[in-house]
């Protein structure tokens, strides 16, 4: 008790001290790339097992909730499906038009290699960002399973996100719909590069924003497939991101912007695939492949 009396501090002073601590952490993160890796490992051993268990219960509740889904939900789904049909029709038209061109280009770019060749690990999503501003989540696999920082994350057919932090048995993934996410992408038909950004304002519609698409001859149409570009330094080339659903001009009236529909249902995502090959490592053994393509070097991720 006596000891406590000696170190008695007023709450204002504690506040000032703690504020300094926080500010110095922020400053350290900015200047020296200070990371919370050590704390992550420690805190994770306590929290992660609980999260895994709780998540199972959460999953069960979702199932129950699904059973109660009524007419309204079905109507909504119907509407969504109709919308999907429209997008698919447009896309189909565009595809038919460009089939010949595509076949030729595919040969040229060897896109058939796509991403089936990369080794993948399946992981479960065990918890999501506690706030409502960002779209990050934690998966139950980490460096022990071969996942590293900057590994690409897929679900079904499309790109989901990128691993931002990897610990031994879990990793944090930032989704591409996250407001702070940027992906360097290109169109399949003409290999014009652009930047795909997540946007909180478009999340409800399940869309992403793209910008800085250089398309002087107006070749790119709604329904065009977007894939990750060859000049991205973090995303492996040729991963499907989504279809263009809207095209307008950028503010500079030279390049184009618009929205993209992703094939991934981010809200109901439970399992994801993580590619264990990194783009950085790929570059060292396989540079010739990338040099065959020309593209305007656009501002890249982050």
């Amino acid at each position: 008790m006596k000891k406590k009396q000696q170190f008695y501090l007023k709450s204002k002073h504690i506040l000032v001290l703690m504020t300094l601590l926080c500010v110095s952490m922020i400053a350290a993160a900015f200047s020296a790339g200070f990371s919370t890796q050590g704390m992550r490992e420690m805190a994770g051993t306590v929290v992660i097992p609980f999260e895994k268990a709780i998540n199972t219960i959460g999953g069960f509740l979702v199932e129950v909730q699904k059973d109660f889904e009524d007419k309204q939900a079905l109507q909504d789904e119907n509407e969504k499906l109709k919308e999907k049909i429209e997008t698919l029709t447009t896309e189909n038209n565009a595809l038919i038009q460009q089939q010949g061109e595509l076949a030729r280009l595919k040969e040229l770019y060897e896109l058939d290699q796509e991403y089936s060749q990369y080794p993948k690990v399946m992981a479960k999503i065990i918890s999501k960002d506690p706030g409502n501003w960002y779209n990050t989540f934690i998966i139950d696999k980490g460096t022990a399973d071969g996942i590293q920082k900057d590994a690409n994350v897929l679900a079904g057919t499309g790109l989901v996100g990128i691993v931002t932090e990897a610990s031994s048995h879990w990793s944090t993934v930032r989704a591409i719909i996250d407001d702070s996410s940027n992906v360097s992408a290109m169109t399949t038909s003409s290999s014009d590069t652009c930047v795909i950004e997540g946007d909180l304002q478009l999340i409800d519609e399940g869309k992403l924003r793209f910008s800085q698409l250089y398309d002087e001859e107006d070749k790119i149409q709604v329904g065009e497939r977007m894939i990750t570009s060859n000049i991205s330094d973090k995303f492996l080339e040729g991963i499907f991101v989504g279809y263009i659903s809207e095209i307008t001009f950028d503010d500079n009236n030279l390049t184009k912007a618009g929205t993209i529909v992703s094939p991934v249902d981010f809200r109901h995502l439970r399992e994801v695939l993580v590619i264990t090959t990194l783009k950085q490592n790929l570059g060292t053994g396989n540079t010739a492949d990338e040099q065959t393509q020309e593209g305007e070097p656009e501002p890249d991720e982050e």
Partner: protein
Amino acid sequence: MKSKIMLLVMIVSCFFLQCTLFKSISLASITPNLLLILCVSMGLMRGKKSGIFVGFFSGLLIDVFYGTLPGFYALLYMYIGYLSGFFYKIYYDNTLRVPAAMVAVGDLFYGLAVYGLQFLLRSRLNFGFYLMRIIIPELLVTVIWTVILYRFFYQINHRFQDTDRKERNTIWLVK
């Protein structure tokens, strides 16, 4: 000591409930801010110091697992806890109006701070959208959960209150 451990356990439970269960039962993808409810209620029930303590560790958990900037959420939650500590003792009972109002103010502050420091600075200028889509719904949902959870927090806090703390409270009253 017992109450410190109780606080830590509550922080961690609120954190993983918010990340898992409340994420999967969220309406319109809005999750209540349980950690904020905890900070505000502990600030109200136990004073500024506990507010700082709870706020700091809740924020730190978010920073460690989800934050891009270590220390940001710790700072934010800490101030919310500290500010709610100003109302310590004045409204120390288990009526719900004051905690609910405090949580509303705290959550508004939280929302505005996140928007101002992380979105506005990246030139996301459409404030009206973010206010109506994120800040206000989150505020409402969080207040509703305060009504449900405050009594529960109150009971737990009452049960685990230290004897030395009780002593200090009496000294406080004499002053």
